[in-house]
């Protein structure tokens, strides 16, 4: 098995996935930072609409453009960086529009698509369009010679699957017989027939469900979109190949709880069934094991020389509070240990443990602490 350190050195695309709130974004940023420190030119991307990545990288705002993390930030944090680190948040609207402009045969067609009501509804407002459009952007960056490595942070599990499935879904939709009919030119085009001739039962029924003008916008959209489908289809195939390439590795980030671990294992099976190459599990925010203290509060209170001026009962109360804290921590450490053991038993893959930090990760120094446990 290849360690993370090696993967950071020689792969082209690393993808973090997992359920929500487990620290995916932080982990992706920490990996990207470590690779950049090792001398590579790295772009880290998030398709999560939140601004987390910006926070952790000390950037004020991440738009739909790549921004380099100021090398001065590294110096200020007493960290070396031999390479370059760029970050960006994939912006749905920009990405979708860029794709239309890129694949359209001419600017006029591009503009007609961009002006279509259905396209606007499709690209800007609705869940799913984001993942659908994002993969193309990722591919562009991976193919860009300006970068040695792209690190991609995906949205939480249910939607991470949407993201991974989006290219496949697009291809299969594009390859379907119905689409071929729909795309057929002139009078043969089903879309043209739907618009032109008397409406059959199917179109009547669809209208009943949606409202007439909507379906016309939609068919119009399909006719226009047909002109860019071949280019998109080729691109979609390239994305599929990229996700399965040996230069790509998927990481599953999980919290050390039974439910999260089971979710991660489920996700691993889904990755395997799609043929996506797996890099390992990253277990985040783990309580370190602590020794037990078996003495009773009174005994310990007597040993608390530093507060010997206090009456014994007050010292006992301090000690009791501390013992309660130790018990709580020990219970969490035991819970974490069991979850990790379960993952280790069932996973058959590299597993990296990142301990719970006493403070939040909010800057490069915090990221460095995470990166250190990743590559330890």
């Amino acid at each position: 098995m290849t360690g993370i350190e090696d993967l950071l050195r020689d792969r082209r695309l690393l993808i973090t996935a997992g359920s929500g709130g487990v620290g995916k974004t932080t982990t992706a940023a920490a990996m990207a930072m470590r690779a950049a420190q090792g001398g590579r030119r790295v772009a880290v991307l998030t398709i999560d609409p939140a601004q987390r990545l910006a926070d952790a990288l000390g950037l004020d705002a991440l738009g739909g453009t790549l921004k380099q993390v100021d090398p001065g930030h590294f110096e200020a944090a007493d960290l070396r960086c031999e390479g370059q680190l760029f970050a960006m948040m994939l912006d749905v609207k920009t990405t979708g529009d860029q794709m239309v402009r890129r694949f359209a045969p001419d600017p006029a067609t591009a503009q007609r698509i961009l002006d279509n009501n259905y396209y606007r509804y499709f690209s800007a407002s609705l869940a799913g369009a984001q993942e659908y459009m994002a993969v193309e952007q990722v591919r562009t960056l991976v193919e860009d010679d300006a970068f040695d490595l792209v690190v991609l942070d995906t949205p939480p599990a249910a939607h991470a699957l949407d993201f991974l499935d989006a290219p496949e879904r697009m291809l299969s939709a594009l390859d379907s017989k119905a689409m071929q009919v729909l795309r057929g030119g002139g009078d043969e085009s089903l879309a043209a027939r739907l618009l032109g001739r008397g409406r059959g039962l199917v179109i009547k029924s669809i209208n009943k469900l949606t409202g007439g003008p909507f379906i016309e916008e939609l068919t119009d959209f399909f006719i226009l979109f047909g002109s860019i489908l071949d280019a998109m289809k080729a691109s979609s195939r390239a994305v599929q190949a990229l996700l399965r390439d040996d230069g790509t590795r998927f990481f599953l980030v999980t919290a050390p709880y039974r439910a999260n671990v089971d979710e991660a294992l489920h996700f691993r099976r889904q990755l395997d069934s799609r043929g996506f190459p797996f890099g390992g599990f990253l277990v985040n925010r783990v309580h370190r094991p602590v020794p037990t203290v078996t003495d009773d509060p009174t005994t310990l209170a007597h040993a608390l020389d530093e507060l010997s001026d206090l009456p014994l009962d007050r010292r006992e109360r301090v000690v009791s509070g501390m013992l309660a804290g130790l018990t709580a921590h020990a219970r969490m450490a035991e819970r974490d240990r069991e979850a990790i053991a379960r993952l280790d038993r069932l996973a058959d893959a590299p597993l990296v443990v990142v301990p719970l930090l006493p403070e939040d990760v909010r800057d490069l120094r915090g990221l460095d602490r995470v990166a250190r446990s990743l590559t330890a």
Partner: protein
Amino acid sequence: MSEPPHPYDRRFVFVTGKGGVGKSTVTAMLALRSARRGARTLVCELNTQERVSCLLGHQPVGGTVTCIDRNLWAVNISPALAMEEYALMKLRFRAIYKLVFENPVMESLVRFVPGINDLLMMGKAFNHEREVDEEGQPAWDRVIIDAPATGHGVTFFKLPRTIRDAVPAGNMHREAAAMWALLTDPVRTAVHVVCLPEELPVRETTELHARLKGELGLPLGHVFLNMVPPPLFDAEARADFDRLLERPADPRLGLLWDVSRIRLAREALAAGYARELEALDMPIVRLPIQYTATFERPQIEALLETLPA
């Protein structure tokens, strides 16, 4: 105009927040509270690995509305089932449904409408809100929905308005307009936000609050601040502990001091984040961390105990 009812007493309740903050926990707790007070309550999960029914000690219920406790029902809404239900309602005949939906052209069309799944699921939850029994009485006193996470969540809430504006007329327009009217009605609807006392969830909650309230004008309920570390010491013991400026010499006490300091650092962080949330005009409900090996029904019951009556 009279004051809208207390958020707990509204009919159509959403629980949202950043991923992993405990939305299902809060949904389960609110559902249990509602059912205990005699309201016929339906919990909807939206096409996820079911958590709420499991947290309440029941098997996953799937797509069928299932009674999981006294006065409490649950359902996991899947887009496919919701689509079939909606289409059958509108088209009336299964044969037409089959013709339309088992038609490859339609299949492709549906695949090309991202968001349609969310719309269908929200539509089904919406139909439960207005569902009536044989006597024409509302079938449910309360419908509680475990909503998608932040980010995706805003898109989700915006959906009815988007469709209402994008589709100029017809059934879909009418449905979407009615859904939006319900969503924005402070008498019937409340949107609760779940948060953790950590930097990024607090920031996201602040952003979410601004978007839900400002951009969408939804009637907000409470912020549930989950996993707040309970104080390790009472005030006097804390003052005494704070006099220990250095690690005690005794190794057992040294270990206890180390662990306690980490805990107190988290307590202080949590208190700071709670203060940031106080700037929002949403009441905050604090839910303590429970240091237990498992998180199941007894832990939900314990949380319910901490809720003000």
